[in-house]
């Protein structure tokens, strides 16, 4: 039993944290968000580092690492609230890599790994991040199917979503090429979203701690008041709970795939609610300033809200967990 990253994985996390700290500061995020554009220099750099292909098999030009390494990068990009098509691209790559046919993999994965193209994944009727610029879109239906659609064959309507650090769209398409195993495809993409949410929550917690240690009222740092400090403790509990579930799911994706469905549902349910609560708490703990456009906490809150709605709300995943539990217990009861 070793519920911690390996040395290599820790190194990936440190490197990502350092790099994004320099290249994707909150000032940069603001610049991109207010300018309604992406940080193209950042994406070029991430591509050069091979990040989009981290979990794509080597035979398709990726680095051949696993869902844990991908979760680490997704978490760090969430921590940075980076304005980039990373999550959308790796969700598509995870879905095609884990659930696609050999033909689909050969057709799309090399381009996604090299950064030559970007991808997107989302639900019919939902907000699909970065669909407009993507070359390939994985469309998930509410009947459990998923199909691969080339951008040219999709009807993409850009939406001005509340998260300005990312470009959302609604997507529909008539045709498309069904994935061989849509369940595993969607679950792996779901774990990547959960990982990003863990990073968002972690950043909101850290920003809040720095603020409440510094901000004084009644001659005392507000973080000394239990109304505030207990809120912060709750933020840690929510963040760490989401982290436990998400790391478990990422580990299961490769090591014990039969536990992935439960892991993905656990991770998404915990991370969606956790990140929404933690980022909302961050605004509250920042007081009036937290409600202003000038403060940076709202980027995190908005990202959490939109991510939480991707690939199933927490409620949907809780009902899924209930069904999985009932199915496990049914033979015992019978």
């Amino acid at each position, binding site marked *: *039993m070793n519920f911690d990253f390996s040395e290599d994985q820790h190194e990936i996390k440190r490197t990502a944290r350092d790099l994004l700290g320099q290249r994707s500061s909150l000032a940069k995020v603001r610049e991109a968000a207010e300018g309604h554009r992406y940080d193209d220099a950042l994406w070029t750099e991430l591509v050069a580092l091979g990040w989009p292909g981290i979990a794509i098999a080597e035979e398709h030009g990726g680095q051949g690492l696993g869902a844990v390494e991908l979760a680490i990068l997704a978490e760090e990009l969430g921590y940075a609230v980076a304005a980039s098509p990373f999550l959308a691209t790796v969700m598509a790559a995870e879905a095609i890599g884990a659930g696609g046919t050999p033909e689909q993999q050969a057709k799309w994965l090399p381009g996604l790994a090299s950064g030559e193209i970007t991808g997107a994944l989302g639900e019919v009727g939902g907000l699909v991040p970065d669909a407009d610029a993507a070359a390939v879109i994985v469309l998930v239906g509410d009947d459990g199917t998923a199909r691969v659609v080339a951008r040219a064959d999709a009807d993409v309507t850009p939406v001005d979503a509340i998260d300005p650090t990312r470009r959302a769209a609604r997507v529909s398409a008539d045709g498309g090429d069904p994935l061989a195993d849509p369940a595993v495809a969607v679950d792996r993409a779901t774990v990547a979203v959960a990982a990003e949410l863990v990073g968002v929550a972690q950043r909101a917690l850290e920003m809040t701690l720095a603020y409440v240690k510094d901000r004084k009222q009644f001659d005392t740092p507000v*973080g000394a008041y239990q109304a505030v400090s207990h809120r912060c403790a709750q933020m840690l*509990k929510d963040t760490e709970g989401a982290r436990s579930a998400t790391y478990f799911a990422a580990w299961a994706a490769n090591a014990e795939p039969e536990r992935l469905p439960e892991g993905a549902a656990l991770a998404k349910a915990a991370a969606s609610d956790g990140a929404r609560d933690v980022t909302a708490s961050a605004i509250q703990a920042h007081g009036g300033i937290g409600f202003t456009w000038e403060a940076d906490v709202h980027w995190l809150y908005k990202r959490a809200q939109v991510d939480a709605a991707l690939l199933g709300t927490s409620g949907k995943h809780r009902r899924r967990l209930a069904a999985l539990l009932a199915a496990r217990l049914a033979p015992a009861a019978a």
Partner: protein
Amino acid sequence: MDLTFSESEAAFRDELRAWFENNDPGRSPEGEDAAYAWRRDWQRRLADDRYAAVHWSPEYGGRGASITESAIFFEELGRARRPLPANVLGILLAGPTIMTFGTPEQKERYLPPILTAEEIWCQGFSEPDAGSDLAALKTRAVKDGDEWVVTGQKVWTSGAQYSKWCMLVARTDVDGAGGKHKGLTYFLMDMEQPGVQVRPLVQITGEPEFNELFIEGARIPDENVLGGVGNGWRVALTTLMNERSGLAFFLQVRLRQLLDELVEEAAARELLDDPVVADKIGLLHMKAEILRLTAYRGLTTIEKYGTPGPEGSLTKWMWSETNQELAQFAADLLGPDALTNGNRWAYELLRSRGNTIEGGTTEILKNIVAERVLGLPRLKGAAA
């Protein structure tokens, strides 16, 4: 990252499963005293095969189990639905504290009968006016020749009526120079003397699980001071730190079993298709799994880095809150049955209220998290 047990951990788990399979104490008999005797016998069986305290070093009758193996023990104990040993406070609290601070004579005298349940231990820390603010305790010990004479009152002492010994913290320096944490001393007090009166304290379930302890002129010889006169706060903290580990895994499994049983009851009543019910079951399942996973993350942190991470402070909070939520949900789900005395869910509904108080209130746990994990400043007068 590898969330499977190592070969030796898996072997230990299998060995435990086989042992529990072959060693079934049966159902707890009716009646407080009979039930206690039953748990005492159970502990003797565990001790005979060196399973009573696997985390103790072999020289004291343990197996020198790693912290993960100790967690596995408690998980398997719960999984097999076997009871905790009668002397659980002796095994988890008194024993490790004596190992840390005891003289060779004390270790030799006290440790063996803890394991065999020959001598039961209770914990004399809290007082009516010193709960979360433990260092405010007023029980006094005054030196008289080579003895100490103790006067005061303790409360929430579970198992006191069966105990031979009490881990007693008392004030030995009443001047209070250097603050209230100074001048405390940790004693090993013989409960079998006229100066110690045990009165059962009936809790909201109607059971007397806890006691009040009235101490009037009780005598403790010098050699029963643990860790030195005036060092009681430090020794007591060692006991309290032990309180928060180990048991978490037993409780985590019990929570899981309760949830599974509730889902089975809900299924039998054909309630699972109700989306509100499913949502709540999913939530409780998620919380139970997060508790288990976070407890395991905590183990890795301790084994790898030597000190507990943030996870350790969170698991008791998570467990107590979820256990209460589960009991409350059972009341919603099962209706009048769960509100009728004698029904197990009615019992859980009442008993679980204590979970967020016993062994450190949730409010104190939040203080600990805020101050020691998050590094937030402490408000004057508040403590963690």
